[in-house]
């Protein structure tokens, strides 16, 4: 792939992201903050779902674990410790469940990840209930601007990791095992280790994103934090954007957020219908997503 065609537009977007808060109003800033959130989540997901071909439909579990960790630590430790702690907790969880979970492939993996995310949600719900805390208020949360900068940093980091991994031994091994796991192992790719690395790596940033987002609402609610719709949105954005292209996360998150901003308040039913139509359309006719469309245009001209 042409590196300039990949990196240059990404740098332009980053430049825009850095200039953004200087003119954005308070509402627009929240839109920017959400965009950064989705880019960070989708680009992280792509490491495992795009490169290794292991489609996780439960990525919210890492977001939730990170959020839960940082909520518990909040006001005990400063933000710059709470956020990495959330990432660490999510990464450790991925490392722990990865070995058994990654033994299954295809639709079984999809269903298993969805199930695990739901299971963890209800476990957290249960333990909160036992503690007599069905919901909690969070005090002294950081400003939206602080959150914006932190999320922009995470989105950038997620894309940089994706760009680097694609060019390394790990990335090549992942693509090989995505195409054919048996053949990859037979020519020497350490498939089990590589899958676990991709899965763990794809969990850490979502954990940190969750750690930040839980502090946005000043109100902690388990079902909101572990909402399966977050997982669905990540997969939808990745597929519409192009699930193994670093530009895909930006394109997919950007398009979906744009549509939702226009339609969500005015016609929520149409929004969901459109989402479904888009997803089906892309899977059937543009499996390489918007980024794939760009690459094809680039080659033709």
């Amino acid at each position: 792939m042409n590196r300039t065609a990949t990196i240059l537009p990404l740098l332009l977007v980053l430049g825009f992201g850095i200039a953004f808060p200087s003119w954005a109003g308070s509402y627009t800033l929240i839109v920017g903050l959400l965009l950064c959130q989705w880019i960070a989540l989708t680009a992280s997901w792509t490491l495992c779902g795009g490169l290794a071909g292991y489609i996780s439909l439960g990525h919210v579990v890492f977001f939730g674990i990170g959020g839960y960790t940082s909520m518990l630590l909040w006001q005990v430790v400063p933000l710059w410790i709470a956020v990495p702690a959330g990432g660490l907790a999510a990464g450790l969880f991925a490392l722990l469940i990865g070995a058994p979970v990654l033994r299954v492939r295809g639709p079984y993996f999809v269903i298993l990840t969805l199930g695990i995310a739901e299971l963890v949600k209800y476990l957290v719900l249960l333990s909160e209930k036992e503690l007599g805390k069905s919901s909690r208020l969070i005090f002294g949360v950081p400003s939206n601007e602080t959150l914006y900068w932190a999320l922009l940093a995470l989105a950038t980091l997620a894309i940089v990791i994706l760009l680097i991994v694609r060019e390394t031994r790990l990335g090549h091994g992942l693509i090989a095992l995505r195409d054919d796991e048996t053949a990859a192992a037979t020519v020497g790719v350490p498939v089990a280790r590589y899958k676990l690395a991709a899965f763990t790596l794809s969990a850490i940033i979502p954990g940190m994103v969750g750690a930040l987002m839980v502090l946005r609402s000043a109100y902690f609610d388990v079902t909101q934090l572990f909402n399966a719709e977050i997982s669905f949105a990540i997969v939808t954005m990745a597929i519409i954007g192009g699930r193994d292209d670093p530009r895909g996360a930006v394109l997919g998150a950007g398009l979906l957020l744009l549509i939702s901003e226009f339609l969500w308040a005015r016609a929520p039913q149409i929004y969901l219908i459109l989402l479904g139509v888009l997803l089906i359309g892309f899977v059937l006719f543009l499996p390489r997503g918007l980024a794939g469309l760009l690459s094809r245009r680039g080659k033709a001209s």
Partner: protein
Amino acid sequence: MTLLAVEGVTKTFGGLRALDNVSLAVDKGSVVGLMGANGAGKTTLFSLIAGNARPDSGNITFRNDAITGNKPERICRMGIARTFQIVRPFLSLTVRENVMIGARFGQNARGSRLTEVCRESIELAGLATMADKPAADLTLSGQKRLEVARALATGPDLLLLDEVMAGLTPAEVMSMLETLASLRRNLGITLLVIEHVMRALMDLSDSIVALHHGQVIASGTPDEIGRDPAVRASYLGLES
């Protein structure tokens, strides 16, 4: 010197005995042919040697190291490569990228050596003009050659070839035979070959092992095998 020794290996799938107490030895530098009808257990034997499946019992040793039940990536790095009868190319990659995966992971080649290993393997397998084509665009014969190229790139001492000539035209069989002969002659690679093209197997092999319903029914030089009554009865369908 024995490079590979298979001793009393048994493998069952459900109630079916795919391999029943199979033993064979492959000498360093030799070409050993494996013959038998469909379902005789030839490919299963390859899978056990390459680590794609685990035997129920028995031992496999390579250069005097026990490799029974090892992971395929480990066995590959020890110097055993295999091709797949039903081809398994990395379809999203080009020919060169496919081969590069083999060289990088199979023998840790990097830098200029990586480029060199890839070029050599592609040339040996006769794919030089197609190096930058997507693997998905190759014909069956091209994909069979890609199997050979990718396996070669891992730097094997022992190469397991699973019907690389099946489905090829007579002219393609001739050129593949030359390729294989040169592997032994120029690179000193030991070959264990499954083949249905009998004449090719007879020409290529120093010795042949005949499998029938998961059991070794005969082994010896191609001439001896051709005269063996058990082989003629079970494989060629002739009365002795």
